[in-house]
């Protein structure tokens, strides 16, 4: 086997493409499997047409080595068919399905090769499933896994659900009330974001990055800006770093508090449901005080931030935070103290640590299974380098653990806000961003509130984006929800679903 001697990147760094060796496919596979055996995780994997068309597609895999705070870059070439890595490395299953759908190539031996987002391939005239390549595929049209037998029935839900939720299709195989298998088919929110980025960045790109998943505006916006800054060699001023972290934690707070409230609502515990629904708005309004938008639109910009935070405003925000904090703690205390709540959450939607690791779960879902994953801790940038040391995990892997991870992260984030807000550096809030380096690759890992947001930018010889890869935490974690539903009652699906609270549009792109 070839020695593991890949090029290593830090979070927010760029590397010249010529330094990344193009491996034989066999060497690529051996290296990747060895990395994963040594607890590396596939942070991103994507294909891109090779510059010389005769070479087919280039395949990149970026493996996060959490304990070394770096990312290993592997590169190879593939043709129309290539041996699937999924059987020996389940983390690859969605990445390979995605590559098959985008470029019409076939990973041979993939155990679950179905479309992900239902769009035509980016290369004209090809389709991995032999569908008519000139017609838009119909969403949800694929062979669902089916269980047969007496008393076995199928429940299909969606794409339009009850309530104000994004669309997705869920197919349950049930025996009575018991769920034997859940298959999740998404793609309804697919807007073609990665494709629109080709030859970018374009003037509309920043707004599109902020709306990959609107509830993760700061997370995705930040990852995009870090990629551009890495590719252009821009140094972000210290004050902008602080404001960015402040906004990222406010986003986490708003969503985590909202989630605790929604979880309470799902089990009919109305006091916390009502309080947290309002408190979520209070955190959003803090973000709006900073930049005018409750979701942080317009705040994070390449090179820094678009809005300054003077000591007066910072003081006002911290004073408001104090009041909100008291109410948040009170609302959570009665929730975690109520026996009726605990009995509904404990043991529901349990996921084992090994499944979480095999599937490459990230964020809240992983942390709840005692899997330490937090890019603020393992791959820190900006103020997180010296401010963040509170990596939270829970042991039980159930809905309760996911609620507890959120509640403990709320405490940590409030403390972080206070520390950032009282030690704001002086100076500029934005630095100029020059042209992007040609033929380079950069990665950004940002711990959004759901988990790790990964953006990878690859430039061509003209310094424009040849490929841009976005990995929302939900990309990995939807598989976790499907596994967590096994042997659960179908009536507990809303509760389990909410305990993950994943993004449809973040997955669909």
């Amino acid at each position: 086997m070839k020695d593991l001697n890949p090029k290593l990147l830090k979070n927010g760094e760029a590397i010249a493409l010529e330094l990344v060796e193009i491996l034989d496919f066999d060497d690529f596979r051996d290296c990747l499997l060895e990395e994963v055996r040594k607890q590396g995780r596939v942070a991103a994997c994507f294909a891109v047409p090779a510059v010389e068309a005769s070479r087919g597609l280039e395949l990149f895999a970026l493996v996060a080595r959490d304990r070394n705070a770096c990312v290993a870059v592997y590169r190879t070439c593939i043709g129309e068919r290539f041996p699937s890595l999924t059987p020996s490395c389940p983390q690859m299953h969605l990445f390979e399905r995605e590559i098959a759908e985008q470029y019409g190539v076939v990973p041979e031996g993939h155990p679950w090769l179905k479309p992900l987002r239902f769009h035509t391939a980016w290369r004209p005239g090809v389709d991995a499933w032999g569908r008519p390549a000139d017609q838009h595929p119909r969403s949800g049209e694929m062979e669902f896994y089916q269980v047969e037998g007496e008393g076995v029935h199928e429940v299909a839900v969606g794409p339009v659900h009850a309530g104000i939720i994004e669309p997705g299709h869920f197919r349950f195989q049930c025996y009575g009330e018991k769920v034997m298998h859940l298959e999740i088919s998404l793609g309804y929110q697919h807007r073609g974001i990665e494709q629109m980025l080709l030859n970018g960045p374009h003037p509309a790109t920043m707004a599109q990055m902020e709306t990959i998943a609107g509830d993760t505006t700061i997370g995705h916006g930040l990852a995009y800006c870090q990629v551009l800054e890495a590719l252009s060699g821009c140094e972000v001023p210290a004050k902008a770093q602080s404001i960015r972290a402040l906004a990222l934690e406010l986003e986490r707070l708003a969503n985590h508090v909202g989630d605790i409230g929604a979880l309470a609502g799902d089990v009919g515990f109305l006091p916390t449901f009502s309080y947290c629904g309002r408190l979520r708005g209070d955190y959003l309004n803090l973000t709006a005080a900073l930049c005018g938008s409750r979701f942080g639109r317009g705040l994070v910009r390449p090179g820094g931030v678009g809005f300054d935070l003077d000591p007066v405003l910072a003081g006002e925000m911290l004073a408001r935070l104090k009041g909100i904090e008291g109410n948040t703690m009170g609302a959570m205390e009665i929730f975690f103290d109520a026996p009726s709540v605990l009995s509904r959450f404990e043991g529901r939607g349990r996921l084992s640590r090994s499944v979480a690791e095999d599937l490459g779960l990230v964020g809240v879902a992983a942390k709840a299974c005692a899997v330490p994953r937090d890019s603020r801790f393992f791959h820190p940038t900006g103020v997180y380098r010296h401010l963040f040391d509170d990596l939270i995990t829970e042991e039980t892997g159930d809905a309760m653990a996911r609620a507890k991870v959120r509640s403990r992260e709320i405490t940590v984030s409030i403390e972080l806000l206070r520390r950032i807000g009282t030690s704001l550096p002086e100076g500029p809030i934005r630095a100029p961003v020059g042209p992007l380096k040609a033929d380079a690759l950069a990665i950004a890992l940002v711990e959004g509130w759901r988990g790790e947001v990964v953006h990878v930018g690859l430039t061509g010889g003209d310094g424009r984006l040849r490929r841009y890869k976005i990995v929302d935490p939900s990309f990995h974690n939807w598989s976790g929800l499907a596994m967590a539903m096994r042997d659960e009652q179908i009536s507990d699906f809303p509760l389990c679903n909410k305990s993950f609270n994943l993004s449809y549009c973040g997955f669909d792109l």
Partner: protein
Amino acid sequence: MLQMIRERWRQGFRTGKFPKEEPILPPRFRGLPQFAGECPSDCDRACEVLCPFSACKSGDGRLVLDLGRCLFCADCPACPQGRITFGNDYRLAVRQRQDLLYSGGEYPLAQPLEPERLKLFGRSLKLRQVSAGGCNGCEADCNVLGTLVFDLGRFGIQFVASPRHADGLLLTGPVTENMRSAVLATYEAMPAPKIVIAVGACGINGGPFLHSSEVSPGLDPLLPVDLYIPGCPPHPYTILDGLLRLLDRR
């Protein structure tokens, strides 16, 4: 139990006084655009090119901003002379698509429904929300109307689970290819008479995804829209104000 009562006491009464009292929005909030002075006679109409979403048109010394396309960007790149700024007025809902073409002055806020439908829906309006490629921003700001701060129920407006129970469709998102048939099926499933509300820049004209081949863009080419609520996303009060105007409650 005692702890719960104590907590209830501490959390206090939080439902806003809207619409009797106007909401207080943060100073940096971006609402109805404002235009500084007239366009210069020798203007090179750069705004038509510089807005990434083609929201600006200029002619006859007037700048026309299409609020159906505008994302209320903090760093609006459109006018090199910096004529376009955003004010604090959150009331933005209109009844007609062309009413969103704004060039200053009085803004044609939404008029109530015509008497026939107003009589049916004025005191009880049930809406079915469908997200068709929305980023969950508009969806979240609709959802929040159900919290006790806004308490949508006190106006007789409610989001319902089934289109069969609904009087209206409230749509968010640019209508992706993959959602188009679901949107039309939901509309078909609603009993007539019915209303259609487009919330957010995406639902009105495709928003940031205007130029994607995977989106419609927006609801206009597909269904007759009764109320347009612009913004990216609109503030919850913008949505609530629009709904109340439609029902002749403001």
